[in-house]
């Protein structure tokens, strides 16, 4: 049994989209919390997509996905 999952974190971690419960509980600002989470849960540095066409395509499709979901969300405000 083999599985890969591609995780996207930090959907709310941007200016203007604070999460009060998290903020109160952790006592961290969004940037700090994001960085802490990223550092604790990640391994290694960001992939260098230069001269890596597959990585460039993957990033592009991730961006497409986030844009589609995000567009639905943003249109509510």
């Amino acid at each position: 049994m083999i599985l890969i999952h591609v995780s996207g974190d930090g959907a709310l971690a941007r200016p203007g989209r604070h999460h009060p419960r998290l903020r109160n509980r952790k006592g961290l600002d969004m940037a700090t919390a994001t960085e802490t989470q990223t550092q604790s849960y990640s391994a290694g540095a960001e992939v260098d997509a230069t001269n890596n066409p597959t990585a460039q395509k993957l990033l592009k499709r991730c961006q497409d996905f986030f844009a589609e979901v995000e567009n639905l969300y943003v249109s509510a405000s």
Partner: protein
Amino acid sequence: MYQPADAKCLLNASRTPGKDLEKYLNAHYGSGNPIYEDLCSLTRKGVEEGWAANIDIDGRHYRRSKIALPKEETRYFSITTVYMESEGVFSGQYHSHPYGEINCIVQIDKTAELKGMQGWQGVGWTSPGAGTHQWVILCKDHVHRDADDITVIHR
């Protein structure tokens, strides 16, 4: 009085990590969706090429790598690939999701499933909501689906 704009707000408010988003993604971005299929094929290719999920966490059966840090270009999502291989139920490292998480499940073995907000999920998506914390749990077959010793904690 019916207000289309309000209805739209209610609908769109669900587009943040959690049960509703998980249902939505599996309904609209599952198997056969061009974006989902591309994410799966490109991720598999990245693993084959050796740059995706290439860093051992606990041997070669549990690996991950960072594809992108949070940035404007990714809508402030970070992107991580995680590779898990097991013959039974496998629990990855305990971690939290301060802002939620969206998991695109890329099967290599078609029996592989990931524990989501709605239960075990094969092809498709899971999306733990903001503030949840858990062990990533992988399962092979139906025998383990309802096992009481599987613990996934969601707040």
